[in-house]
């Protein structure tokens, strides 16, 4: 009898623990499987025969090409700051650190809008040049070129390089290098024999991660590359939503999935082998002060290009959103333009020629609404998942790697899968309002778990036991003991989930109904339309999104938690 009671008591726990599994099964594996099924149908039926193979080969080749180029450029750009941050102490170091966190959480639409505001045909550079030289046409034509794509990818991923490689480098005990020097190794040989081999795992994992991000990049290609460039991601989107050719989209996404799967597996294996016994150092103990003119000019050079790369696009975005330009004139002279709040005021109006059936400001409300629901789902399931992983049971061992899979899966593939699976009531993309936040939760959950799990694991069991021995019920133990310890981590995770939801673009393009756009969707629609008013509203909307995200970053940095792994 007692035995039976014991089992009954564990039932709620098992139910709770199985929730994250069920969620992943229904909303991640099912759509993924649907993609593969669609791809399989495409190859077995005559759909493929009627289709030009170019639909697949062209995007694939371009995807690989731009990925290689972007990755190489990112390494070149990321290397000096990684070295600088790891090895030196200087005024402004924490500012540079803050700069490098910006891209982590800045939505792609904002970054695309930022580069547009800086270098686009109506951007600052062109406005300035046109004013100075009285030109009719904008002289810089970088938007809709490969250059713009590469630039945005470098913006995003050089921070990955700086963080991963710089982090590993700052953990390297300089004494190891000194020891090699005293044993007769020249600085070059120290690099060859000691530093490089020790950094290699970090270098490789950074490169793989960057490769993966570039490979699955979607919004950047769509917004900055224009119609000329089509990667696998963009082609999936075009085939599914514009051509309504679901079999082709399925086939493309299967190819995409295979690539990302291989990259993700390689990456996780690398992470595991990475932990060769390096005694962790206090990075500040390792860092040296800047000395001499060589180091000083290196510092100034690196800092200035980082500021230009990370801050200039966002800064020009904000400024541009207040600058009213007269689009009827051929020469857009700066002097004739003025600063105003017109673009922000326009967001509240529902004009007939508006791209929406509702005032654009509703997109912001939609985003906030989806964001809050995402926080709820991701926190609840993420907390359960983190507890399961922290319990060190066999459940946790299975869940840990599975949970990270959505990180490597492209959002477009996920969106396509949702369309394929959820097409009948009650779970219908066209009517069920929660599919957007559910997709966002899938993307956000790995981050939530990564933030919560180490903190949960750090709570000693004895703490819980002592509370229980002192007479607290499990429920009270949670609220009185565990929750206060977890509080900062929970807030941090919530902010993360919220910003991810606000900025999510790929899956949302598939799932958001036209009359319920989110902020990124609205920005995309504005940017793809001609006209100064649309452009200005894109800038205004992007600025609003940017500010929300920036506030989140600052809050998360303030809440700085110990022992959080980046990925």
């Amino acid at each position, binding site marked *: 009898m007692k035995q039976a009671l014991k089992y009954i008591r564990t039932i709620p726990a098992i139910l709770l623990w199985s929730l994250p599994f069920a969620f992943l099964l229904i909303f991640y594996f099912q759509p993924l499987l649907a993609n593969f099924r669609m791809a399989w149908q495409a190859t077995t039926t005559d759909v493929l025969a009627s289709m030009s193979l170019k639909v697949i080969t062209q995007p694939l080749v371009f995807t690989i090409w731009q990925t290689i180029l972007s990755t190489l450029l990112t390494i070149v750009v990321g290397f000096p700051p990684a070295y600088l941050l790891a090895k030196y102490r200087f005024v402004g170091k924490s500012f540079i650190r803050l700069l490098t966190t910006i891209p982590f959480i800045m939505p792609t639409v904002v970054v695309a809008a930022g580069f547009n505001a800086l270098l686009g045909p109506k951007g600052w550079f062109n406005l300035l040049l046109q004013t100075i030289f009285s030109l009719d046409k904008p002289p810089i034509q970088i938007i809709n070129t490969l250059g713009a794509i590469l630039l945005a990818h470098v913006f995003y991923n050089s921070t990955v390089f700086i963080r991963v490689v710089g982090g590993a480098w700052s953990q390297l005990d300089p004494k*190891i290098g*000194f020891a*090699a*020097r005293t*044993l007769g190794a*020249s600085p070059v*040989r120290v690099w060859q024999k000691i530093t490089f081999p020790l950094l290699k795992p970090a270098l490789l994992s950074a490169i793989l991660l960057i490769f993966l991000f570039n490979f699955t990049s979607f919004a950047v290609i769509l917004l900055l590359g224009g119609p000329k460039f089509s990667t696998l991601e963009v082609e999936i989107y075009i085939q599914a939503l514009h051509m309504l050719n679901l079999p082709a989209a399925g086939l493309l996404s299967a190819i995409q999935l295979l690539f990302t799967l291989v990259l993700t597996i390689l990456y996780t294996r690398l992470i595991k082998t990475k932990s060769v016994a390096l005694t962790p150092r206090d990075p500040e103990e390792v860092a040296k002060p800047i000395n001499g003119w060589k180091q000083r000019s290196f510092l100034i050079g690196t800092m200035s290009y980082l500021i230009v790369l990370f801050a200039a696009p966002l800064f020009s975005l904000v400024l541009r959103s207040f600058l009213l330009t007269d689009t009827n004139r051929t020469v857009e002279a700066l002097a004739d333009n003025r600063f105003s709040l017109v673009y922000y005021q326009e967001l509240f109006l529902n004009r007939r020629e508006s791209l929406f059936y509702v005032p654009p400001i509703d997109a912001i409300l939609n985003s906030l609404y989806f964001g809050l629901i995402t926080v709820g789902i991701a926190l609840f399931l993420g907390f359960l998942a983190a507890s399961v992983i922290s319990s060190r049971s066999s459940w946790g061992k299975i869940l840990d790697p599975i949970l990270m899979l959505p990180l490597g899966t492209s959002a477009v593939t996920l969106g396509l899968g949702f369309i394929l699976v959820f097409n009948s009531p009650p779970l219908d993309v066209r009517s069920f309002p929660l599919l957007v936040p559910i997709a966002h939760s899938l993307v956000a959950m790995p981050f939530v778990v990564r933030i919560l799990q180490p903190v949960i694991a750090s709570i000693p069991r004895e703490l819980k036991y002592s509370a229980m021995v002192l007479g607290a019920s499990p429920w009270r133990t949670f609220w009185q003991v565990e929750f206060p310890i977890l509080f900062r981590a929970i807030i941090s995770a919530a902010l993360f989930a919220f910003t991810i939801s606000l900025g999510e673009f790929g899956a949302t393009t598939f799932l958001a109904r036209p009359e319920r756009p989110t902020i990124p969707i609205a920005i995309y629609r504005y940017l793809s339309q001609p006209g100064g008013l649309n452009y200005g509203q894109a800038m205004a909307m992007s600025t609003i999104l940017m500010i929300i995200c920036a506030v989140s970053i600052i809050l998360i940095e303030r809440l700085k938690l110990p022992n959080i792994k980046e990925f």
Partner: protein
Amino acid sequence: MLSVKNLYKKYENQPLLRGVSFEVQKGETICLLGRSGSGKSTILRIIAGIEAPESGDVFWTNQNLKDIPVHKRKFGFMFQDYALFPHKNVFENVAFGLKMQNLPFDLIEEKVITVLNKVKMQEFSHRQVADLSGGEQQRVALARALAPEPRLLMLDEPLGALDRNLREQLMGELRLLLHASNIPAIYVTHDQEEAFTIGDRLVLLNDGQIIQNASPEDVYQTPKNAWVAKFIGLSNLLEGVIQSTQPLIVTTKIGDFSVQTGLPKNAKLADPVILLLRPDAINMKDSNLNQFQAHVLDDVFLGNQWRVKLQMSDLEFSFLVDEPIPIGSIIKISIDPKQINLLQAEK
């Protein structure tokens, strides 16, 4: 062979070294002794060429090493936490310096095996360094520093990370190894016991300056000042004033002391001095010299002697005695006038 001349160095705008000079002779092991943060390790790093002094020079025989880079100085360096190469096994770690000399592989192998034998690690040559215990890592680090046959060996607190038992065992081995190798060595430590065991000569460093540079015996018998005395564990210190020089009598809080050792340099009548009462200075026999009353605070059995803690006036002293004394009793002691050092008073 090595001479260090007038080193000055600042650390975060605070003077760390203020004119440090000393020499190391052939086959000699010197111990740089001082508190942590006293700049001992910095001196080693300057000699190795890892750091540069603000002024001052390092000479090897007669060559100024100023423009010789680290990897061409042929000095061995053993770091406090060993700095073993984590991606190389024991053999590869020890072979590293020899490889840098581009020696043929056979010779490298032979030399590595010889030096691993010396530190009794021959069976570990294919182990990963991460799998070694602290003591084993220490031996590998020593072997790695010795393998290229450096012309000078520097050891930066090489036993600092080990527990007490292991430290005592390795201290003895290290002492024998260093003397057998005949390589001049500079050994940095903050532990006086280690310094006494290892060093042929002690160089005591405080406040960026060398306070005393002498053999361990000299340092123990005649510490230069109260700081040195305290640092090497002689803590029975007492302020006094010279009352008469012939015979030598010093007045203190406790009473007048008759002293039969020398005066500190330049000391004259009515000067303040510090008395150092050596640990063996007391006996319980009646004597007409330096007899005082003391309150027994504690008495600890050490094996062959007892350490008794006494209170005289409001000061506490500890002495070694040959018989137990009941705690709490009041006893009469006499202090041997030959077992008192007079030290310069601190300014």
